[in-house]
């Protein structure tokens, strides 16, 4: 019975819906359009439910960690912050002059931006220690990096045609390598999708 609900029914649903939605894409009939519209509504509802699952998972995880001395203070802060923001949002609303928005603008934004900004320091240290000319390829890479880094500064505006040179590097050699990757990824996605629809790929239901 458990195997039926955990494996067979999900696989059957994915097969049926996958085939229906593939056919739907090529059929311009109003009935086909209705199927499409309904599927969009269902997908949005399911996406919203994912948040409920995420909140339950978050609370379960941190409640368990409250028993661990090492992690308890952090988990307590996480639970309190979550609860406070939910209450403030529900009671005072999320309008532009609300407390919720003020906390967001004056705590969340600076905290997250600061954390991300630390990258600048790590990058400069890594560049200083690791970016070495060890061969022809490394030399080409370094010259290109210098041009792009310099071209993306405002000081680069003093050099004639700098923007155009950077644009060429990004739009020709960079693009060529990126496109190869994108085509490879695209083919991989198609192959994996077909395998999932046909039930060959079953990792998503636990193998």
């Amino acid at each position, binding site marked *: 019975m458990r195997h039926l609900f955990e494996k067979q029914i999900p696989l059957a649903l994915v097969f049926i819906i996958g085939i229906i939605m593939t056919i739907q894409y090529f059929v311009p009939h109003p009935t086909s359009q209705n199927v499409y519209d309904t599927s969009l509504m269902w997908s949005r509802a399911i996406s919203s439910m994912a948040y409920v699952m995420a909140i339950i998972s978050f609370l379960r995880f941190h409640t368990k960690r409250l028993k661990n001395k090492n992690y308890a203070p952090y988990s307590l802060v996480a639970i309190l912050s979550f609860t406070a923001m939910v209450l403030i949002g529900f009671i005072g609303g999320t309008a*532009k002059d609300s407390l919720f928005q003020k906390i967001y*603008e004056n705590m969340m934004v600076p905290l*997250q931006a600061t954390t991300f900004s630390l990258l600048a320091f790590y990058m*400069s*240290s890594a560049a200083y*220690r690791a970016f070495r000319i060890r061969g022809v390829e490394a030399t080409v890479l370094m010259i290109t990096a210098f041009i792009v*880094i310099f071209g*993306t500064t405002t000081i680069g505006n*003093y050099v004639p045609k700098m923007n155009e040179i950077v644009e060429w590097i990004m739009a020709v050699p*960079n693009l060529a390598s990126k496109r190869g990757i994108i085509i490879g990824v695209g083919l991989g996605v198609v192959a994996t999708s077909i395998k999932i629809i046909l039930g060959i790929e079953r990792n998503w239901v636990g193998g």
Partner: protein
Amino acid sequence: MSVRDFFIKLSKIDRKYIYLIILIGLIIPLVFPPNFPQKMSPQVKRVFEFIDTLPKGSYVILSADYDPSVAPEVHPMYKAVVKHCILRGIIPIGMTLGVQGAGLAVEAFTEAERVLGARRDTDYVFLGYQAGGAVVILGLGEDIKGVYKTDYFGTKTTEIYALKPVKNYKDIALVISFSGSSIPVTWAVYAYTKYGVKVAAAVTGVSAGDFYPYIQAGQFIGMLAGMKAAAEYEYAVNQILKERNIREKPSTDAIRMMDANSIGQLLIILFIIIGNIGYFLSRRRK
């Protein structure tokens, strides 16, 4: 100590000194702005001119698909594009596919109200967040008011004056996805490919390289990439404000931060050169 020993020693310097130099290099231009010249790069020009030449009353969707971690780069772009649209009589429809983008977008529209006297639901609309990602993008192609029954502030979208003539992407001149991730590609794949609406990307400098294939294929009309694009766009919008004699002090966040960023990037180039001189000298010694 010989020059060789000096460079070898310098290449092994403790990282805290590097951090200190970067910190000083970033703080000085923020306190004393050098005001380096702004020159619009080709990709920024494409987006700016596209919006600049749209007929008055056109609609542009500005999707704030970013979070505070990339706000220093992407948020000034969002603010500048919002102001640009309003100054040209174009109605920006704000929305977000990432829950954290809502607060930042609200701040951008609040600034537009203060600086330009923009009125909510008349000069701009902010729909807020909707869960679903690609599904939301597809849904907007069918019926925008069906996906968003109310706007961010709880007003029914069917009652919003500015949204009266808007049904779906057929009424939208351009979609710009502001993001620090690959969400603009999702817009290109689902909004442009399926519904034909024009799409542009506004992204962080570090991820810009990923989007060039989509520009060349015509799936994006242009791209705003990183702090440099933010500064260029902000400067161009400030020029319009100056032309209109708008007295409110214009925002120069991106311009100031780009000056500091430029110094930081030059320092990194300098570090790489010094590091390599030390590396070469130590190799020759061996």
